[in-house]
C-alpha cells in the first residue's frame, strides 16, 4: 500500500512536468499544479504509513537504470523527509497557480517546479549508491533550471545561478568521491549491505568518506562557510521554488549527513560530530546576524535558513557525540529535537517564502525599505506571514518554541555526560541557540514591523492589493501546521521518535512520555504549550474585560483616531518613518567586526559656502564577509591559473602529445 502510494507520489509530479511542458497557455498551469498537489498527497500517505507502522518498504527494478538498476527503500528517517517535502510541496503547488497567473508563464516555469518536486521526493528513498547519486544529480539539475526559470535574463539571477551551479557541483563531486570510495571498499553499493559491513572498514577510510560527504551535504544544507550560494539563489528563484529550496532541499543535506554518518558508517568517531556541531554553531551565529542586518525580505529569509540549519546541525552533532559517548537516551532526545526543528523550519520558512513572494507579487519589490502599511492592504497575507515570523522567533504557543525548547532541554541534560569536550560543544551550542534567539526575533520584528505595519513608504506599497485565493491557500496550509504543532506538539512525538531511532546507529530508547505536550519522563522537564496558550488567552480576555469595565464617561468609550504624534510638526510623511536599514543599524554597529558593513558618504557643498551642504548621499551595503575573505581570493587564483593554462598550449601538436605522454607516465607510476 505505502509503496504504491509513494510511487504515485513520484509519478504524478513527473506527469505534471510533462503536462506543464506540453499543455497550451493557462491550462498548463492548472494541470501541473493539480497533478503535483495530488502527487504530494499520495507521497504524504505513503510516507505517513511508513512512519506510523515503522515498517520500511524495499523496491528493486533493473529496468530504469542500466548496469545497476534502481533500488528504492523508505525507512522512517527517509519517510520523515519525504513527508516534510510533501507538505511544503502541496502548499507550493497550490500557491503556484495564483503566482504564475499574472502573465502566461513560460513552459520551463511550469515544468520545472513539479520536476524539482519529484526529485526531492526521490532522494530520501534512494537505497543504493548509484540510485542516490543519480537522484542527487537530478535534484541539482532541476533545481538549477527551476531557479533560472522565471527571469533568466536578470544579471543577479544569472550570477546566483553561476554560484549555485559551482557550489552544488563541487559538493556533488565530493559526495560522489566519498560514496564510490565507500562502495568499493565495502564491496557492495547497496546501502543495506554497506550498513551491515561497515565494521570491516578501517577508521581512516571511514573518516575520509565522512569528511568528503560532509563537505557535499553541508554545502547543500547551506552551512557556513559553504553557504554563499544560498543567500543569492533563494531570493532570485521564483517564490514556490525558494520555498521548496528552503523548506525541503536544505533538509536533504541534513538527511545525507545522518544517512552516511549514522546509518552507513555506524556512528564513527567523536570528532566527526564535534565538527558537525562546530559547523552548526558557526552557521547559526553568522546566519542570524546577517538575517538581522539584511533589508531584502527574501535575502533575510535565506540567511535565517542558514541560521536554522545551524541549529539543526548543532542538534545532529550533539546527538552523534552523545551517541559515541554511549548516552543513548540523550542522543535520541537531541536528535528528535533536531528533526522536530527541521520539520518546523520547513513549515514556517516555506510559509514565509510564500508570503515574501506574495509581497513581491503585490508591490513589485522585496526591499523592506520600500514597503510598509501592508497589514491593512493585504490582511490575510499579513496574518500568515505574522504566524511564520512569530513561530521562527520561538514565541510560546507556536511550533518554533516547542522544538527550540526540546533542543535546549536535550543540550542541558547532555551536561550530565562526563566528557569535557562534549560538554564544551554543548555549551557552545546553548550559547549559539541563546544568541540566535535574540537576533532572530530582531530580524523578524523588522520584517513584520517594517514590511506590514506603519505607513506605506512608496507608491507600490500604497497600491498593493490582497493576493488571490490559491496563493492564500498555499500559505494557510503551512500556517495551520505551525499553529497545530505549536499548541499540541505531542502529536508529532511517535513519528519523530521512530525517525530519530532510525537515524541513530543502533536505535535510541524513548526519551519522552507520550501525550499532547512535551514531557521528558525520566529527565525531569516538561511543558504543556496547550495549557500555556489557554492561560494566555484567559489573561488576554481578563485584561480586555477589565478595561471595558473601567468607569469612563460615555463619549470616551471608543478609541479616538488621531494623527500620529510627531512633536507637533506641521506635516509628517512616510519619509520620516524608520526604515529597515536604520532599524538594523544599532545591531550592525555592535557586530561591526563580524558584518564589516561598508559605507560611502558623499557631501556636495553649496556654491556660496562650504559650511552649507547642498546634497548628502549615503550608501551602505553589508556584503557576506566570508565570501569576501574566503571565496574572492580563491576565484582570483583560479582565474589566474586559467590565464596561465591558456598560455601553455600554443597549438603545437607536439606539446599536446607531450602532455598526453606525461599524463600516461604519471598514471603508470601511480598504478605501479
Amino acid at each position: 500500500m505505502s509503496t504504491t502510494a509513494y510511487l504515485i507520489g513520484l509519478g504524478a509530479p513527473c506527469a505534471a512536468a510533462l503536462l506543464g511542458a506540453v499543455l497550451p497557455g493557462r491550462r498548463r498551469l492548472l494541470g501541473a499544479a493539480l497533478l503535483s498537489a495530488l502527487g504530494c498527497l499520495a507521497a504524504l500517505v505513503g510516507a505517513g504509513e511508513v512512519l506510523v507502522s515503522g515498517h520500511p518498504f524495499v523496491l528493486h527494478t533493473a529496468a530504469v537504470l542500466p548496469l545497476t538498476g534502481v533500488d528504492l527503500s523508505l525507512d522512517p528517517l527517509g519517510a520523515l523527509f519525504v513527508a516534510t517535502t510533501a507538505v511544503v510541496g502541496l502548499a507550493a503547488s497550490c500557491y503556484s497557480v495564483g503566482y504564475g497567473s499574472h502573465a502566461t508563464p513560460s513552459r520551463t516555469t511550469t515544468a520545472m517546479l513539479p520536476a524539482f518536486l519529484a526529485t526531492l521526493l526521490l532522494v530520501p528513498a534512494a537505497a543504493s549508491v548509484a540510485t542516490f547519486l543519480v537522484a542527487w544529480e537530478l535534484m541539482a539539475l532541476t533545481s538549477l533550471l527551476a531557479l533560472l526559470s522565471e527571469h533568466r535574463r536578470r544579471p543577479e539571477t544569472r550570477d546566483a545561478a553561476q554560484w549555485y551551479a559551482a557550489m552544488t557541483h563541487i559538493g556533488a563531486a565530493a559526495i560522489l568521491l566519498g560514496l564510490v570510495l565507500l562502495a568499493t571498499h565495502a564491496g557492495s553499493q547497496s546501502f543495506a549491505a554497506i550498513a551491515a559491513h561497515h565494521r570491516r572498514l578501517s577508521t581512516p577510510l571511514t573518516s575520509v568518506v565522512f569528511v568528503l560527504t560532509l563537505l557535499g551535504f553541508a554545502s547543500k544544507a547551506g552551512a557556513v562557510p559553504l553557504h554563499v550560494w544560498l543567500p543569492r539563489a533563494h531570493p532570485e528563484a521564483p517564490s514556490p521554488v525558494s520555498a521548496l529550496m528552503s523548506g525541503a532541499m536544505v533538509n536533504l543535506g541534513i538527511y545525507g549527513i545522518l544517512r552516511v554518518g549514522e546509518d552507513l558508517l555506524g556512528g564513527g568517531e567523536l570528532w566527526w560530530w564535534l565538527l558537525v556541531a562546530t559547523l552548526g554553531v558557526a552557521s547559526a551565529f553568522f546566519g542570524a546576524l546577517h538575517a538581522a542586518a539584511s533589508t531584502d525580505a527574501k535575502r533575510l529569509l535565506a540567511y535565517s535558513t542558514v541560521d536554522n540549519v545551524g541549529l539543526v546541525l548543532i542538534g545532529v552533532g550533539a546527538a552523534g557525540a552523545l551517541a559515541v559517548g554511549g548516552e543513548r537516551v540523550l542522543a535520541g532526545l537531541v536528535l528528535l529535537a533536531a528533526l522536530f526543528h527541521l520539520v518546523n523550519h520547513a513549515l514556517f520558512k516555506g510559509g514565509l517564502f510564500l508570503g515574501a513572494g506574495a509581497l513581491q507579487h503585490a508591490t513589485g519589490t522585496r526591499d523592506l525599505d520600500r514597503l510598509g502599511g501592508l497589514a491593512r492592504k493585504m490582511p490575510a497575507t499579513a496574518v500568515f506571514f505574522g504566524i511564520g515570523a512569530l513561530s521562527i522567533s520561538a514565541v510560546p504557543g507556536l511550533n518554533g518554541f516547542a522544538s527550540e525548547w526540546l533542543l535546549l532541554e536535550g543540550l542541558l541534560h547532555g551536561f550530565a555526560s562526563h566528557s569535557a569536550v562534549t560538554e564544551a560543544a554543548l555549551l557552545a551550542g546553548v550559547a549559539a541557540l541563546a544568541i540566535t534567539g535574540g537576533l532572530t526575533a530582531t530580524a523578524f520584528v523588522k520584517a513584520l514591523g517594517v514590511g506590514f505595519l506603519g505607513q506605506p513608504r512608496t507608491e507600490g506599497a500604497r497600491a498593493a492589493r490582497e493576493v488571490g485565493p490559491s496563493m492564500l491557500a498555499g500559505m494557510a496550509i503551512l500556517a495551520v501546521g505551525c499553529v497545530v504543532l505549536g499548541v499540541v506538539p505531542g502529536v508529532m512525538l511517535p513519528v519523530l521518535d521512530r525517525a530519530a531511532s532510525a537515524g541513530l546507529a543502533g536505535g535510541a530508547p524513548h526519551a519522552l512520555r507520550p501525550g499532547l505536550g512535551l514531557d521528558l519522563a525520566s529527565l525531569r522537564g516538561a511543558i504543556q504549550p496547550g495549557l500555556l496558550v489557554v492561560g494566555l488567552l484567559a489573561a488576554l480576555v481578563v485584561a480586555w474585560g477589565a478595561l471595558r469595565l473601567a468607569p469612563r464617561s460615555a463619549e470616551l468609550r471608543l478609541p479616538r483616531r488621531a494623527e500620529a504624534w510627531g512633536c507637533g510638526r506641521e506635516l509628517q510623511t512616510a519619509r520620516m518613518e524608520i526604515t529597515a536599514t536604520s532599524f538594523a543599524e544599532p545591531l550592525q554597529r555592535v557586530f561591526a567586526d563580524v558584518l564589516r558593513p561598508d559605507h560611502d558618504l558623499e557631501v556636495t557643498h553649496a556654491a556660496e559656502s562650504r559650511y552649507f551642504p547642498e546634497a548628502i548621499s549615503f550608501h551602505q551595503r553589508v556584503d557576506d564577509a566570508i565570501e569576501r575573505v574566503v571565496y574572492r581570493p580563491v576565484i582570483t587564483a583560479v582565474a589566474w591559473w586559467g590565464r596561465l593554462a591558456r598560455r601553455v598550449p600554443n597549438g603545437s601538436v607536439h606539446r599536446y602529445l607531450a602532455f598526453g605522454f606525461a599524463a600516461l607516465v604519471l598514471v603508470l607510476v601511480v598504478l605501479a
Partner: protein
Amino acid sequence: MRPGAALDVVELAAGVVLAGAVLALWRKDLRALISVLSLQGASLATLAAVLAVHDGDVGLGVVAGVVLVAKGLVIPGLLARVVRADPGSRETAPLVNVPASLVTAAILVVVSYLVAGRLTALFPNALTRLAPLGLATVLVGFFVLVTRRKAVSQIVGLLLVDNGVALVAFLLTAGVPLLVELGASLDVLLVVVVLQVLATTMRARFGHIDLDQLRELHD
C-alpha cells in the same frame, strides 16, 4: 572546621579570582582594575589561610599572611599611587574592543577547562579539579597583558598572571614552598617599584604613560 565548608570557601575564593580576571577585562577604569587586584589578593590569602587551618600547616599560614600583605595591600597600594599621579587615567583604547575581548575571555575559560581537565585527571582530588580556574586566570591575564596599551594596565595583566599561577600552585601542591611564593611576590614587587620609578621619570619628561608614544620615541 567542617571539611565541606572549607571546600566551599576554597571554591568560592578560586571563583572570585577568576571573576576578578574577567572584571579586569571588563572595566576600563584603572582604579577599578586595582581594586580587582586587591580583591584577588585577599581571596588568595583567604584560600591559603583556609588550607593552612584545614591541614594545620603553619608555613602555609605564613604564606597566607605574606600573600595578604604583598598582593592584597602593598602592590595595589603602589599601583594606586602611580595611577593617582596622573588623574583621570583610563584604559582609553585597548587594542581589542571590549566585547570582542570579553568573548575571547569566555573562549579562553572554556579552553582552559578542556586542557586542565586533561591534566588534573591524572591525580584527581577535591582541590586539583579547581585548577582550570587558575589556568583560566593566567590566560586572561596574558590576554590583558597583550591587548592593553597603558603601562599600568599591562602591569595589572602581569599581576593577574601571577595570581593565577599562585592559585594553581596552591591547588595542585596544596601549599607551595614558602620561598617560591615569597620569591614570586617579591620579584613582582620589584617590577612594580621599577615601574613606579620609570613612570615618575616618564611623567617628568613627557607628561603621560603610553607605550605607543614610547615606541615613537624609539624610532
